[in-house]
């Protein structure tokens, strides 16, 4: 039970830097979203519009990476992450995700469809899972043609979440990273592995009755493109 806290001063420094950066990113994301909404659909032909949409996409990626880095630092520098599972109405999880991504998806001309059991309640760490799925959708934005499907169902005591797109599918390197994630492979050697590693750690921290969560990547699915799958006990 001994502590291996490393350097608390460094951690405090990192935490407060992250706090600052997050404020900046919040403002950046918010401003971009407001600008895009104010410009309205009629502005879509303006050459600045897709550039702004791209800026919003990159800002969201920046935020995702920040969350992951912080969580990873905690993984490495501290024994684990404050994990806080609570019962969550699945429909609310979907509402929050859809609202978070609304402006980005609209500005990129991507249609999001959702399907879920309306009364399902699942016990999970809401903020961690929201972060993970937001990242998966951001990732799908990169690979899709014009459609993303978010599907949730209950199966064999697991909640299964699928994020599918109608693009050309994940590249082989990514699929391979998906297969080996969580098997002790050094994720730092593979840039797409970082997000997957984070997602896998979040999934695995959900445990119930000797079972734990997992993630998987596939090509195909109902839309024929890439497919990210999260399963939580």
């Amino acid at each position, binding site marked *: *039970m001994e502590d291996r806290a490393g350097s608390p001063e460094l951690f405090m420094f990192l935490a407060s830097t992250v706090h600052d950066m997050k404020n900046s990113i919040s403002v950046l994301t918010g401003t971009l979203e407001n600008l895009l909404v104010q410009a309205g659909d009629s502005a879509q032909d303006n050459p600045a519009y897709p550039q702004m949409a791209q800026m919003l996409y990159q800002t969201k990626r920046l935020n995702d990476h920040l969350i992951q880095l912080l969580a990873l630092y905690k993984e490495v520098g501290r024994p684990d992450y404050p994990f806080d599972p609570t019962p969550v109405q699945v429909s609310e999880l979907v509402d929050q995700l859809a609202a978070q991504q609304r402006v980005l998806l609209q500005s990129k001309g991507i249609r999001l*469809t959702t399907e879920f059991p309306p009364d399902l309640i699942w016990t999970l760490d809401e903020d961690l899972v929201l972060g993970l799925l937001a990242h998966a959708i951001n990732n799908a934005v990169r690979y899709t043609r014009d459609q993303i499907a978010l599907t949730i169902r209950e199966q064999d005591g697991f909640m299964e979440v699928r994020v599918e797109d109608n693009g050309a599918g994940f590249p082989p390197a990514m699929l391979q990273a998906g297969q080996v994630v969580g098997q002790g492979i050094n994720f730092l050697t593979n840039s797409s592995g970082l997000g997957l590693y984070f997602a896998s750690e979040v999934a695995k921290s959900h445990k119930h009755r000797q079972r734990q969560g997992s993630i998987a990547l596939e090509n195909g699915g109902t839309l024929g493109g890439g497919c990210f799958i999260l399963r939580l006990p």
Partner: protein
Amino acid sequence: MNAPPATTPVAPAPDKASGINWAEKRYLIVDDFVGVRQLLREALRSLGARHIDQASSGGEAIGLLARIQYDVILCDFNLGEGKSGQHVLEEARIRGLLMPSCVWLMVSAEKSVEAVMGAAEHQPDAYIIKPITEGVLLTRLNRAWQKKQIFQEIDQAYLEKDYLRAAKLCEAAAARNKLHEVDLLRMRATLLLKAGEPEQARAVYEKVLQERDFNWARTGVGKIRMANGDHEAARQMFQGVIAENRFYLDAYDQLAKSLQNMGRLQESCDVLERAAKLSPNSVPRQRALGVTALKLGNIALAEKAFRKCLQIGEYSIMKTVDAYFGLARVLGQKNDPKEALLLLAAAQRDFSGRMIELRSKITEGLVYHESGDYRRARKSGDELEEMLSGERERPDTPTCLEMATLLFAVGVKDAPVELLCYVVRNNDDNIVLHDEVQRIFDKARMGDEGAALIQSARKEASEMMNKGVLLWKTNKLPEAVAWMREARKSLPDNMRILFNSAQILISHMQAKGYDEALMTEANDVLMHVDRIAPGQQRFAQLIEQLQKLIPGRMSAEEIEAELSAALKVDHDEE
């Protein structure tokens, strides 16, 4: 069962027919960063909000909260220098600045240990992690609001100390609200504990644990074990929770308590030190660490803890005078009496009351003594003896022990012996405390004499009580009431005497009819119990029995049944 695939509407944030008009509410945004304030204001405006105030610091927020009643508060956890978001929340709650219906959303950049695992007494209604988006904000607002509605009646019963009714309300609400079922069950268990029904509370925790392995439920079972005196079993349970989740701070605090109860001070201190490392900003935890380290003679650790305690306390309504006294002792032991005396002056300036004066004087004497100024220490001791002789009432147990330690050290003998015997009589079944008293006697080179004194003090207390119980069982009720009244005068804080006093007063009324004066007396006794040791098993039962005695509440047959049950219960116990 599945909803048909739906295209998410690309319209302003979807308000799910929640029936809440967020436009008409009054909002306060607290954040030190102007950009974030603007962003939050925009998000609220998109919900239709018109009345939005802003504060850039905790102090400014408190100023506004004191003048204006807000419906919703969005407060950043990390406000830079000065008060933190948690400080603002605690102060607002303790000063009663918030309406019961007010929703408090705490905003933070990351999931902090304090935020999630806070054993903090005052929790916000929800946490939101940055960056905040309208959708998340609206969902969390709606959820917090609905939860408030569900808990409204329960909170009211809680405020009235009607724990059993509140627990029943929880049970009924849990059956109706699947989403909040776990929260309601958790509340129900807490209420049952407060109502002195640990077995029922344990059943609730165990029911929850069958569904999911929640840390709070496992810790709850441990607390019940501890309350039942099974400290070793409790220790193992808390240890188990920590092994699985190193951030669950409540388990550390409870583990430290269980070790303390077994007299394992060094281990208790180690646990508190680890918890303080994980979450340094809790006044009660730093105080507990300082006090324990000081007892162990670990001056460096005690100093660090007390200094941190003062530092956090500067902005917190939870600030404690214990940190001043503790740090003064530390400084005395480091041979810096000057600084120590300055601190005692500060304590008397920042806090007031007779108890503060008494404790300042004790600490002053200890500081002089420990820094080798025996002449001044003796003078403080004499002054203290004088303060005591003019007063029939005695302070609480830890203060009595400190005082006895000082008086022995400066060469006074009778007064400390009297104090220690008083402490033992008031706690005649607390073995760990007897050991502590014995150590004080040993240090004063009165080991054998002390052991005999402890023995006779314990005997004195139990004889006093046995006589009262005998009078009661032989149905000499007026004599029993009178005897217990005297017993309480000489042993005002003895838990068994207090409970039996209330029980005998109730029996008297059950047998001989309602009596306003006896009713008030019984009520006063129980309120005293609740002050010195809240959450006792017998407290809620006796309160309930007392309530039923109020004319018109119960039939004669019911009274008869209660009376024979009470006599039978006591027979089993004694």
